[in-house]
Every structure is written in C-alpha cells, then in structure tokens.
C-alpha cells in the first residue's frame, strides 16, 4: 500500500520549487514518514528552516512553520522550544546555513542539549545562489567561487555535532528512504539535541561541475559511497577514504535543557 503524504503536505503548494531529481524531495518524504511513525500530529510540531534550497522545506509541510533569516534557524528554534517545551521543534537546514553563517548557533545548540531535531541537508554547495563552495565542499572541487578548484578542507558535520555535545548524531542519505526515515525517527524520539546529517544530491549546481551532472547517477554515487557504521571497525582505514559513514554515530544520555530549566524553576520557586 502506498504511503499517504497528504495529511502533512500543503497540497496547494505542490509541486515544489526544487529542481527535478533534487534529493530534498526524498528528505521531505522521510520527514513526513518519521513524523507519522512517531505519531506527531500537525499541531504538535513546528518545522523551521533557514535560507537556501533546504529553506523551502518549511513552506511545504502543514504545521506551524517558520522560515528564518540565513543561518538563524537554531536561535529561533531555541526560543520557540523554550516557550512550548511540550511540542516538537524540527529544524531543516543546509550545509551553508548551519555550518557557515549559522556555525556558532550550531555548536552552542548542541552544547545546551535542548530538545531540537536538527536535520542538515548536506549537498556540498550553496545550490540556491548558484553553486558556490560551502564548508562541506570536498577539497579540489569546482565552483563559481573556486574556478581553479577549492583550497579549503571540509567540515565533518557529525564530528562537529559530537564534539559540541549533541547527544544524538546520525548520518543518512537521500539514496535510502527507509534508512533516512529511521534515522530521523530516532532523532525525533531522542530527548536532547539530535543532529541528522543527510547527504543529498545537487546535481544541478554541484554535480554538474564535479562529474555528477545527472540525478540518478549522483544518487547512485552517494549510495556507493555509503559505509554502514556497524562495519567500519572491521574495515581498513584506507577503505573509508571519501566514504560517508551512515547510521547512528553516537547516542548519549545527558540532561535535556528545557527539562533542566523546569526543574530549576521549581527549585527557585520552592526556595523563594
């Protein structure tokens, strides 16, 4: 039986503005499936996105949605979550939005361990503005702002999340809807800051300049680059070069921020 997405979609906004074959469509399907699996109703969640192609996500999902300035999703999400700790706050950001202009917010949100699910669509590029290189663009890639190849080394989003204190960190790709749905579901269920990095294809503005100009081929390339977290320990290190390690990379228990605040308020009120 086919899955019915319509309960969560703003059907009058379809079709999406994303390019044909863009991985963000699959990401949206996975988010909706994970919300369904978790029993999250339309009035129980807010989708917050920033600027970039991923920023459009908030227009399409039928709940209270918020489309913030570039890189600022997490501060808005933090304020919203603190005002309504009982609701799910889901942030959909991109590699430029969360790793470059929003990098400071990223590390501090993870540090606080506030119950926000952050989904970072990593397509290695600023797709919406025409394919400029981002903090996750692999070295020696081509971009309009790197006409002779990129010099800079790339961020590993999941390593950043773990180092900053996020208590649930996972990676998946748009090439495997089932796995992606599962990672997002686990992120939604986790109490604390969850970061799910989603490798996505921008064949139009990244792939075209970097040997992956067609969506099916680029998605296949992503699929072939995946190595499951469960098997990395038995693989020689050189086999992990250029690969995406997918799965739950870390899950820890640490007090969640809004729960801690509620306890703190109780304590202060008791003492005064």
């Amino acid at each position, binding site marked *: 039986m086919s899955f019915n997405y319509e309960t969560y979609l703003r059907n009058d906004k379809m079709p999406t503005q994303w390019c044909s074959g863009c991985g963000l469509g699959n990401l949206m399907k996975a988010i909706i499936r994970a919300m369904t699996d978790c029993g999250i109703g339309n009035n129980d969640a*807010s989708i917050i996105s920033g600027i970039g192609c991923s920023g459009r996500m908030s227009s399409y999902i039928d709940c209270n949605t918020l489309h*913030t300035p570039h890189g600022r999703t997490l*501060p*808005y999400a933090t*304020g919203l979550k603190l005002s309504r700790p009982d609701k799910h706050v889901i942030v959909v950001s991109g590699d430029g939005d969360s790793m470059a202009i929003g990098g400071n917010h990223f590390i501090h949100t993870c540090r606080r361990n506030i119950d926000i699910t952050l989904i970072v669509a990593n397509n290695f590029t600023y797709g919406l503005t025409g394919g400029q290189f981002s903090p996750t663009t692999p070295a020696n890639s081509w971009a309009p702002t790197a006409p002779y190849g990129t010099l800079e080394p790339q961020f590993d989003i999941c390593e950043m999340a773990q180092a900053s204190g996020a208590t649930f960190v996972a990676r998946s790709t748009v090439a495997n809807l089932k796995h992606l749905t599962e990672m997002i579901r686990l992120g939604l269920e986790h109490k604390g800051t969850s970061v799910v990095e989603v490798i996505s294809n921008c064949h139009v503005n990244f792939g075209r300049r970097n040997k992956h100009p067609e969506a099916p081929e680029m998605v296949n390339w992503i699929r072939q680059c995946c190595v499951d977290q469960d098997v990395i320990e038995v693989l020689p290190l050189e086999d992990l070069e250029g690969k995406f390690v997918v799965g739950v990379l870390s899950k820890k228990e640490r007090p969640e921020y809004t729960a801690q605040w509620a306890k703190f*308020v109780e304590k202060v009120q008791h003492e005064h």
Partner: protein
Amino acid sequence: MSGNAVIAEAAIAAGCRFYAGYPITPSSEIAAVMAEELPKVGGVFIQMEDEIASMGAIIGASLGGMKALTATSGPGFSLKQENLGFACMAEVPCVVVNVMRGGPSTGLPTLPAQGDVMQARWGTHGDHPIIALYPADLTEMYWQTVRAFNLAEKYRTPVILLSDELLGHMSERVEIPDASELTIIDRRKPDVAPDQYLPYDVKTELVPPMANFFEGYRYHVTGLTHDETGFPTEDPDLAEAQLRRLMLKVSANADDIMEWEEDGLADAEVAIFAYGAAARSARAAIAELRAAGIKVGLFRPITIWPFPEAALVKAVSHAKALFVVEMNMGQMIREVERGIRDVPIVGIHKVSGQPIDPEEIVLTVREFLEGKVTLPQKAVYQMSV
C-alpha cells in the same frame, strides 16, 4: 534603584516571561535582574551565544506565545538589526532595549551617548515601521517599559526602548506603580476558524490578529515578502499592499503611539528640544535660566519614532530660537529641521562621553540672547561644547 533594574522589574510587571541576551556594557544589569526574577514567576531566562541569537530567540519565544525581551548596547544593537528586520516583516511582537554608549564601533563602553537614535529608526535594511521610546527619568522608565510591551502586542511589531549609560547606571527614587494601576495589553487572537485565518490580511485591518504557534492555526512565518496567508509572493500588487500596510499600521496610529512632554513653552522666548539623559541637563539649565528671568521651555519627545513633528512645530513656533541638545554629532536635529521652518535652530552637541553640563546649555543660550551667536535665518548652527 538603577535604570537598568527598573526596566527588568517593569518588563516582568508587563507580562514579559522570556529574556534572551548576551553580556554587554552598559546593559548587563538588565540580564542579571531578569536571570534572578524570571524563574520566580515561571519565566525563562537564557544567555545566548551572541547578540544575533538573542534576538532570534525572543522572536521564537514570541511566536510560541510569550512576551519577550532582549537588552543590549550599540555594538550588540548593530548585530540585532538582521533579526529585528525579521520581526518587523513577520510582525512578531517583542521589545529590544538599547542602553546607548559612545560609538562608533566599540567606542566608549562605560560612558553615555545618544548616537543610536537614527539606527533605531533605520538600522535594519529596507523600508520598515518602527516604534522607539526614550524616557528621561526612572519612574518614566518603568511606565515606558510597560508601554513598550503594550505597543508591541497591540501593533504586532518590535518596539525599541532606548536608554543610555547615564540612565541605565544612575539611581534615583522610583515610584513603582501598583499592578492594579497598570494597563496590560495582550496580542489579539483570531476569532475565525483556522482555515479562514489570514495572518497578514491586507484588506480588513491594519493589524491582523496573531495566532500563537501550536494552537491550531497552521500558518507560515517568513522574512520573505508574503501574501495575506504568509506564503512568499513576488506579485507586485501583493508586495506593495503588504509593505504599505506594514508602514501604515504605525503611521496611521501615530497619535496613539506618540508621547511627549512640553514644559514651560507657552511663554517661552527660547525653546529647548532634548530627550533622554540630555533632557535632564536641559531641565537643570532651564531652571537656572528661568531663575535669572529668561523664559525658556522644554520640548521632550518620549516617543522618538514615530517622531512627534506636528506637536513640536505647534509648541515652539513662537520661540525666538530652538536649541537642540543631544549627546551625538547632530541626529534628531535633522528631524527637527524637517518640521521647523521659521525658527532658528541651534544645535548643542557633545560626544566626549561626558554628560552635557547644564552650564554649557546656559552659556550657549545666554550668548545667543546677547547676540554673540549670529544665525542666518533657517540655518542650523552647531555649537560644540
């Protein structure tokens, strides 16, 4: 009680239950009092990673239904402009305090100035409405803080509460009103079914009702130019209609928003225009000049934006001269000039980080009356003191 503490106390009395901030002199005491008091009333205090984040967090909290405050000073106010523009555009009520210090850049962190009055008006990009209040004593600070929240809720817009290092760190006797004396305004919620709700309606009223998130009204909030449902549009008619309504909701309600003080202007041969801490210097100078038989009066805008131009023109048009006293290089004086056509305007400006000494005003007024300052009609003469 210090001016900064007064703001915090009044904010809580006004119903503020969320504060996000970042440490900055000379506003930090506001955060300190909020950190102490908010948990007692079940509110939320959070120190964010930077000024940008603090502004973002109060917008998020306001969308969730809380009255929210942040406080800062010049350098932080610059950083807040991005998200402040979002609050204007998306019509999210919130209050931003700017305790002004000397600038530009890091400037004079512990010393007073009034250099951000134009930034309060035009700091964020694009045409946008703004309300800015600037009290001159600490009892008034209390009332204007409450009023800032009320105006934010009533007009669904950010309100800037201006202060300065002098007011922020000074102490004086403050008459704290009883809670029963305060009028508290809350945002108007929609009374239609969710599928009928137009969060940015341009046709029926200037300030459409505001639904909080998670209450069944599932709308979209964006900084993009949007239609009446909140979704992005590039339709020229809709874009123009939205921005015109946005501006009009403040300008058409200016009579409700504007407050000012006129003191001793009826018989005044010389008028002084001053606001905030500079108005305190002006008051002292006026008392001395009056004691010497010179008839001087004060016009003091309490609402800086929208600017009470018509009231100013009416109040000072009979004066021989209008002295504009500011702790900046001459900012509001340009606004004064736009309205005043037939009265010579003399600027008294000081940017040393020191308050304006009333004697400096007295001396300038006396020199003018003795004819030592010759003024071409309608010209602005700027006197450095």
